[in-house]
C-alpha cells in the first residue's frame, strides 16, 4: 500500500520541510542579541535547533501522510517514537526542543487516532442510550461544576494560589459570558470588548479614590457607564458589515486605551491608579486593622483575622457576578430580544423582512455585553487595588474572544471549559508561561480549521413544542 505512494509522500514531506526551512532560516537561525558593542547587536546561531525542528517537521508530515492513506497504526507508532525521543534524556540543543518533539509526536498520534475517536463518539451518541446520556451530561455537568465552584474555598487544597487562580478564571468566565452575548448570540464580532472592562475599572477606581464611594455603590454605576459607552459607540457602527464592525470596535478599544494613557490629569496616565479600596461586607473592611470609623470583618464576626478571608470573599463576589451574568443571559435567550439576537446572527436580511429593527436589537446585545464587562471591570479594580492602562490592551480582548470561540459560540458551559483550559492550564504550568500566547494564537487557528463550532457545538432550543422526557437545559 505504501510502496507506490512512498516517493510522493517523501516528496511532500520534503517540500513541507523546505518551506519550514525557508520560514525559519533567518528568524530562527539567527537570533539577534545585545552584545553591548558599538553596533549593539550580534548573532547567536541556532542552526542546531532549527535542524532538529526540521527533522521533527519532516517526520511529522510523513506521519500525517501515512495517517491520511489509512495507515493509522504506523502513524501512531511514529508519533509515539517521536514523543519518546523528546521525553528521553537525549542531548538536545535546548529544553524547548524536548517539548517541541514531544508535542509533535503527541499531536501526530492524536491526529492519526482522531477519525476513530470521532467515529466511536458519533456512534455512541447516536444510540438512544448515548443520546440520553449526552443530554444528561449536558444537564449535570453544569450542576457539578457549580457545586464544585461553591465548595472550592472549603476544600483542603484551596490555598492562596488556588483561590487566586479561581478568582482569575471566574473573572474570565464572566467576561466570556458577557462577550458571548455579543459574539455568540448576536453574531457581532467585538474586538474592543476590553474597553468596557476598562470603563468599569476606571469608574470604580476614580469614584472610590476621589469621591470615597464604596464598591457596592459603584458596581451598578460602573455597569451603567459601560452600557452607556456601549450604546454611544455602538449606535453609529452597528449597521456595518461583520468584519468592518470588528475593526471599528478594535479602533474604539484602542482609542479608549490611548485616551486613558494620555489623559494624565484624569486617569493618572501610564502610572495608573493605586490604593483602590477593596469591597466591604456590610460596611466592614477586610484588613488586619480597620481605618478610623470602620470595622474589620474579623471584628464584626468575632473571628480571628486571616489574610485568606479577603480572597474568599472576592471569590464569592465574582462567582455571584458570573452566575448573575449567566442566568440573565439564559433568561434573555428565551425572550423575544434574545431570539432576535440569534436570528440576526443567522440572517440579518430575513430579520429585516420580519419587521425586526436590526440596529436596536444589536444595540441591546452590545449594551448588555458592555454592562457585564463594566461589572467585571469594577471587580477587577477592587481586587487588584491598582489599575493601569496596561491591563486593557487589545490582547486582552483577543483572549476573551478566544475563550468564546473555543468554548463554542453561544455555549455557556463551553465558555467555562475554555476559560479553565486557556487561563487555568497556563497558570498551573508556569514553564509554559512564555509560550502561552503562542499557543493561544495557534489554538484559535486550529479551532477554526478543525472545529469551527467550538468545544460544545450543541445548541439547546430556547423553547420547545414537545417537552423532552429527560428535560435538560444547556
Amino acid at each position, binding site marked *: 500500500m505504501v510502496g507506490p505512494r512512498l516517493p510522493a509522500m517523501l516528496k511532500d514531506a520534503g517540500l513541507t520541510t523546505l518551506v519550514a526551512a525557508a520560514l525559519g532560516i533567518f528568524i530562527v537561525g539567527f537570533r539577534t542579541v545585545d552584545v553591548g558593542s558599538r553596533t549593539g547587536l550580534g548573532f547567536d546561531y541556532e542552526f542546531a535547533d532549527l535542524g532538529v525542528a526540521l527533522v521533527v517537521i519532516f517526520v511529522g508530515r510523513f506521519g500525517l501522510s501515512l495517517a491520511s492513506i489509512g495507515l493509522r497504526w504506523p502513524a501512531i507508532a511514529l508519533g509515539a517514537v517521536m514523543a519518546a525521543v523528546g521525553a528521553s534524556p537525549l542531548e538536545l540543543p535546548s529544553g524547548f526542543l524536548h517539548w517541541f518533539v514531544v508535542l509533535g509526536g503527541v499531536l501526530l498520534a492524536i491526529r492519526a487516532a482522531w477519525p476513530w475517536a470521532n467515529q466511536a463518539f458519533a456512534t455512541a451518541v447516536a444510540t438512544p442510550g448515548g443520546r440520553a446520556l449526552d443530554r444528561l451530561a449536558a444537564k449535570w455537568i453544569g450542576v457539578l461544576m457549580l457545586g464544585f465552584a461553591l465548595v472550592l474555598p472549603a476544600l483542603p487544597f484551596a490555598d492562596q494560589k488556588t483561590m487566586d487562580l479561581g478568582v482569575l478564571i471566574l473573572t474570565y468566565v464572566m467576561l466570556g459570558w458577557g462577550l458571548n452575548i455579543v459574539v455568540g448570540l448576536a453574531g457581532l464580532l467585538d474586538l474592543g470588548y476590553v474597553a468596557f472592562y476598562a470603563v468599569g475599572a476606571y469608574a470604580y477606581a476614580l469614584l472610590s479614590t476621589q469621591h470615597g464611594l464604596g464598591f457596592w455603590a459603584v458596581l451598578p454605576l460602573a455597569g451603567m457607564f459601560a452600557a452607556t459607552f456601549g450604546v454611544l459607540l455602538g449606535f453609529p457602527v452597528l449597521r456595518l458589515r461583520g468584519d468592518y464592525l470588528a475593526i471599528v470596535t478594535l479602533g474604539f478599544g484602542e482609542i479608549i486605551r490611548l485616551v486613558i494613557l494620555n489623559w494624565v490629569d484624569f486617569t493618572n496616565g501610564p502610572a495608573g491608579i493605586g490604593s483602590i479600596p477593596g469591597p466591604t461586607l456590610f460596611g466592614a473592611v477586610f484588613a488586619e486593622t480597620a481605618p478610623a470609623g470602620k470595622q474589620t470583618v474579623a471584628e464584626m464576626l468575632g473571628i480571628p483575622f486571616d489574610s485568606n478571608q479577603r480572597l474568599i470573599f472576592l471569590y464569592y463576589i465574582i462567582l455571584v457576578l458570573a452566575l448573575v451574568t449567566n442566568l*440573565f443571559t439564559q*433568561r*434573555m435567550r428565551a*425572550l*423575544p*430580544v434574545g*431570539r*432576535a439576537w*440569534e*436570528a440576526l446572527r*443567522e*440572517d440579518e*436580511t*430575513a*430579520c*429585516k*423582512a*420580519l*419587521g*425586526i*429593527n*436590526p440596529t436596536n436589537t444589536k444595540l*441591546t446585545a452590545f449594551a448588555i455585553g458592555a454592562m457585564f464587562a463594566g461589572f467585571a471591570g469594577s471587580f477587577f479594580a477592587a481586587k487588584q487595588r491598582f489599575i493601569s492602562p496596561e491591563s486593557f490592551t487589545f490582547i486582552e480582548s483577543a483572549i476573551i474572544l478566544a475563550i468564546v470561540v473555543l468554548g463554542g459560540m453561544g455555549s455557556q458551559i463551553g465558555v467555562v471549559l475554555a476559560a479553565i483550559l486557556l487561563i487555568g492550564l497556563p497558570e498551573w504550568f508556569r514553564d509554559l508561561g512564555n509560550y502561552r500566547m503562542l499557543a493561544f494564537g495557534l489554538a484559535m487557528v486550529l479551532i477554526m480549521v478543525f472545529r469551527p463550532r467550538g468545544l460544545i457545538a450543541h*445548541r439547546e*432550543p*430556547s*423553547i*420547545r*413544542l*414537545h417537552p423532552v422526557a429527560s428535560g435538560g437545559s444547556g
Partner: protein
Amino acid sequence: MATLIEVEHLSMRFGGLVAVDDISFTGQPRQITAIIGPNGAGKTTVFNCITGFYKPTIGRLTLHGDRDYLLERMLGHEIGQRARVARTFQNIRLFPAMTVLENLMVAQHNKLMAASGMSIFGLLGLARWRTAEARAVELARAWLERIDLVDVADRPAGELPYGAQRRLEIARAMCTEPRLLCLDEPAAGLNPRESADLNKLLVSIRDLDGIGVLLIEHDMSVVMNISDHIVVLDYGRKIAEGDPAAIQRDPAVIRAYLGTDESGDDA
C-alpha cells in the same frame, strides 16, 4: 373592494442599468396577484422595492391598511413592522440553526416585544408575558399544523428537507400577521406533488386568512391555477396585465416567452 397595494410609476436604476422602468399595477386584498416574466425582467427588483430592500429611483408605493403607508419612504424593517408587508426569498432564508418553532416565534417579535415590556416583564416572568408567549406558541402550532411540520417543531430549521423549508418560510411570513404577503418563487425546486400542496396552501391563505398575495413564479401550473390577476414584465417594463385566460392569449406575452418572430408580428 378597496385596493391593498398601489404601485405607481416605479423605476429602479442601478448605475446605467434600468432594472425596472415605469411600472404601475395594483394588488387587491383576498386576491393572488402574480408577477411573471422571463429571467431578468425585474420581478425581484419590484419586490425588493416594495419590501424596502431597495429605495426606488422614482415611483410611489402605497399600502392601504389602517392608514396609507408610503412604502418608499419607510425603512426596511418598518415595512414589516408597521405596514405589515411580509415576504419570502428566492433562495430560502430561514434561521438554520434555530428550531422550526423558534423561527415562527422570531416572526412574532414585535408583538412579543411589546408584551414582554421591552424584556422587563419577561425577565420578571409576569403573567402578562407568559400568556402572550403561550398565545404566540399557539399561533405557531396552528401554522405548523397547516404546513404539516408539527412533528419536527423542535428540530433545527436547516435540517429540514427543501420542500419543508419552503413551506416553513411561508408560515414564518404568515406569523407576522401581514396584510400583504410577497412570495418570491415559492414553487422553485418543488416536485409536482409539493407544488400542488403549495397551490392549496396559497389558496387557503387567500381565502381563509383573507390577505392579499403578490406572487413571483416561473411555474405556470401554479400561476395559471391560482392567480386572480397577472402582471407580465419583460426587460423591466410591464407588457401585459389581466386574468389568467387573457394573459395566455396575449400576443405580447407569447412573444416575450417564445422569442420575437421578426418576420411575423411587428416588433
